[in-house]
């Protein structure tokens, strides 16, 4: 399959990129690693008459620390995250989440900014124009009024499946966004709309420049666990990130985020409430996982039923918490 014709620009600065995107508003896409975008353009699932290559913009491909705040440039590749000396110790969950993505070839190309903004997924959606797609009734994600997955569904049920976002969300990360109106600093959670067909709140001419992870207490510990059938390539069936701040065996704060259960990463608020302020124990973790099982309503997708995905939420919240607990015990020993 081949790319259709498009106009191509190489931006040297963020401002230039933003002005190109504004100038071709609605027709242009920013190109970073291209691992999500280019195949979709080939399949004519995503339209882009103009591509603005962002790779030439300097200063967006580094991981640094300033005054305790960890700053990751949006063009940093997932491969670079895996290897970064700054993503060790209690930030290693970030490197592990990056490592859990796709394959080594993809991680060498894919950028963090692109990974956070990857398109939502559905088996009924991402098919080329060369196979049947032109005669299928348009689903919500294609601008229509039906859902092929949930036959009488009244909305789009495409799922967000990024591996890195839940970890960053559990860390309370913020994103520096540049647009034609200037610069904004948002909570990462604010960029996700929760709508399958249009999963991001950013406007078409806005770009993520940088991700900021606030200073992490030395007594914080985190983990990311990913459930997939194969040891490689796959998107998560369910992914769970957990961060605890502890004082000996007391959980002072807890943050739990899940991926692949809805059109945006989802926070397990009730599970967090169970953990927060409580004394850590196996029973407590069981209870938190049960709460997550109760509160999270996953979308059925890729052949897995709601029942099964709820079970997996339970299992993987538990596994993430246990991993954090073990880490905390090790860290404090």
């Amino acid at each position, binding site marked *: *399959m*081949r790319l259709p014709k498009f106009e191509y620009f190489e931006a040297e600065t963020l401002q230039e990129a933003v002005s190109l995107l504004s100038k071709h508003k609605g027709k242009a896409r920013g190109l970073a690693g291209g691992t999500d975008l280019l195949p979709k353009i080939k399949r004519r699932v995503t339209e882009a008459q103009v591509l603005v290559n962002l790779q030439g913009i300097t200063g967006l491909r580094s991981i640094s620390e300033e005054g305790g705040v960890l700053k990751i440039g949006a063009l940093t590749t997932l491969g670079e995250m895996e290897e970064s000396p700054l993503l060790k110790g209690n930030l290693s969950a970030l490197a592990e989440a990056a490592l859990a993505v796709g394959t080594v070839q993809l991680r060498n190309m894919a950028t963090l900014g692109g990974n956070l903004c990857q398109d939502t997924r559905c088996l009924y959606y991402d*098919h*080329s124009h060369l*196979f049947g797609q*032109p005669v299928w009734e348009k689903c919500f994600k294609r601008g229509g009024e039906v859902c092929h997955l949930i036959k009488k569904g009244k909305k789009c049920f495409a799922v967000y499946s990024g591996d890195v976002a839940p970890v960053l969300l559990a860390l309370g990360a913020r994103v520096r966004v540049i647009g034609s109106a200037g610069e904004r600093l948002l909570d990462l959670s604010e960029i996700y709309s929760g709508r399958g067909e249009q999963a991001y709140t950013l406007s078409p001419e806005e770009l993520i420049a940088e991700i900021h992870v606030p200073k992490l207490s030395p007594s914080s510990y985190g983990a990311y666990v990913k459930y997939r*059938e*194969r040891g490689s390539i796959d998107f998560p069936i369910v992914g769970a990130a957990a961060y605890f701040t502890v004082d000996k065996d007391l959980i002072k704060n807890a943050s739990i985020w899940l991926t692949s259960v809805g059109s945006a990463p989802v926070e397990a608020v009730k599970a967090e409430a169970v953990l927060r302020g409580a004394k850590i124990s196996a029973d407590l973790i069981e209870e938190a996982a049960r709460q997550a099982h109760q509160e999270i309503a996953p979308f059925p997708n890729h052949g897995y039923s709601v029942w*099964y995905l709820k079970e997996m939420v339970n*299992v993987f919240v538990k596994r993430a918490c246990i991993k954090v607990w073990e880490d905390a015990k090790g860290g404090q020993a």
Partner: protein
Amino acid sequence: MKEEGYSVIGKPIPRVEGIQKIKGEAVYTADIALPGMLYGKILRSPYPHARIINIDTSKAEMIKGVRAVITGRDIPDVRYALSMKMFPETADRYLLSRDKVRFVGNDVAAVAGISEEIAEEALQHIDVEYEELPAVFSIADAINPDAPLIHDHVPGNLHTSILMDFGDVEKGFRESDYVREDRFVTHLVQHCFLEPHNSVANFDSSGRVTLWTSTQSPFLTKQLLALVLDIPKDNVRVIKPHVGGGFGGKAGLYPLDLHCALLSKKTGKPVRICYTREEEFAASCRRHRTEIVIKIGVKKDGSIISRKANVKLDGGAYNTHGPVVTFLAALWLSHVYRQPNIRFESQRFYTNNSPCTAMRGYTSPQSYLASEIQMDLVAEELGIDPIDLRMKNGLRTGDTTVNGFYISSGELHECLQKVEERSEWKKKYKKLPPLKGIGMSSTGLFSGHQLSLLGPYTASSTIFVKASPDGTAFILSGVSDIGQGSDTVLCQIVAEELGLRAEDVRISSVDTDYSPPDSLSVSARCTFQSGNAAKMAAINLKQKLFKAVAEKLEANVEDLEARDRRIYVKGSPGKGVSFPEAVALCQLSHKGMTIMGEGSWNPDPKQLAELNMVTGYGSFSPAYTFGAVVAEVEVDKDTGLVKVTNLYHSHDCGRVINLLGVEGQLEGACQMGLGYALFENIVVEDGKALNPDFLDYKMPTAVDMPKMSAHFVESNDPGGPFGAKEGAEGLVGPIGPAIMNAIYNATGLRFKDLPVTPEMILRGLKKKKGEE
């Protein structure tokens, strides 16, 4: 490993083309670029079943850079099927649809342009008017008396029906102590060769077409292309470059071969078409989905008295290898065990799914899945160890089955014993902790077939070997190495006979103008059948050399031996000449003529009962192979995910010609079998494949592979070259049932439908827990 003094046979010789391949030097079809070459793309049906009312190509033809557009109107009025020569009535497909489209992805038009982009763009400007027709997607729907007919001339959508009935099964069941019937359902998977279908055609002004194509059957492809082009067959030349896998999915002719040829004819330029992975998954070919009902009757001691089965195959929209696959689906059930009464019925139905074809083992993975899970059920019921039950019933050397298979060599018992020992079965079976399990399966296959696919006057394989005074030998062969390693095996066989080293022997790739004919690289036939032809050609050459050397040494021809690059008097290596000297002597005595040996192989009707394709009586193959697998699994109780930790494989492949080769085949088979049982599944809705890519169609990756332990039982088949038999295709069949039986052993959950998902297992575990 038995040595018997061979210098090349049995040795782990690396692939003769291996370095070229790993360095990226090997030329595949998609690498071929000819001056002025155009690029083709195919317009495919978006509907599973529709009548074509009109096709308007005028807009597409006006696009700059488009050189030709063809539709069903442009092809000769010849319907295609792989079996069209043997059974003309089975031809059912215009390779560009004329009247109807019958599956999503069916070929409607083809475009040639100066770039792939332009050709692809032009597809969007071909206007096709369709009249949608009701469609059927399952066997049950196809059988329904009210079902629409997919081919007007085929009532009931019943494409092929085979019945093999020997002995008296009903009487057998009455005489049995224990009778049971089970139903199994298998799903859709694909070959997933890394190289998709690719072709380049060049129709020159003399009326001759040269086709470079990724094929496992150049000679048959040549004949079939001539038939569908309606030109004399010698006006077609087929060249097979390196091929990245076939597994049955590249035998015969594929629509792109005809499209390339016709587009080339129309434009006067060479045309190349490369399928995308999406086209492979959605519009190419697949393993048959089957529904198998199987009934077995046994005595208390486990001996099989009677077995009956009905196999229904979802063939998809067209024939492809249909009749043979249908025949074999029944035939497999007669193999491996002694069974006095059998009645196997096999029926293939048309549906509006993408066509299904042969795939590694033909239908044996499906048939063995049913029969070997059922054997486990019988063992359980009778309280007999599953391995002992197979030992009790296994065929042995010298047996003739009730349907006429003559077992010239067969070591199922040794295979069973080997996997039992190596897996420490007795320590583990029913003794492992919960959620860990062990299970096993037998298997068997053939070593080629007796069918004369190239016509009655052409041997199954003909091979020439020529010797050069530089000390090398060159094999002229039509055998298609499609990645399975036949080139290396043939070089070894010739090297052994001539006393050369493997690296002294080179081999041609297939060009139907220059290579002697060889039947297809299918049915596990190359080592056995072409290997025999190569051996005979080498012996023939050697005799000529011996004659010249004997004269020079004043020795008897019978006393000579070829070894270590020399020809000498047996027992006196000093009394002899070097191989190059021998060739020079021989050429001198023949006025300088290049010395060539000739050999061929064809089934010997005096030795083997002729195969009757109607009754199923006869020896399908000149030799049969046997094998056994033990699988060990661990089940995650929280997720239901199965991890296969070990596969112990033992295979009676006769003499091992190349240890590296059979080990590689075995590992590939483990990967394919593992994928079949647990991972791979083409998800289809209303005839549309929903996961036509390597992301959502989950082939196991390197990290998903279990530990594999291979053992080869070298039975030394009297008909095989150096005693060799099949050692590749049959290895895949037992993996699925062994894993299923191990899952049962681990969890108590018995699955009869594939694929088994973690969700199915978790549901089963929870249900059992609730019941306790």
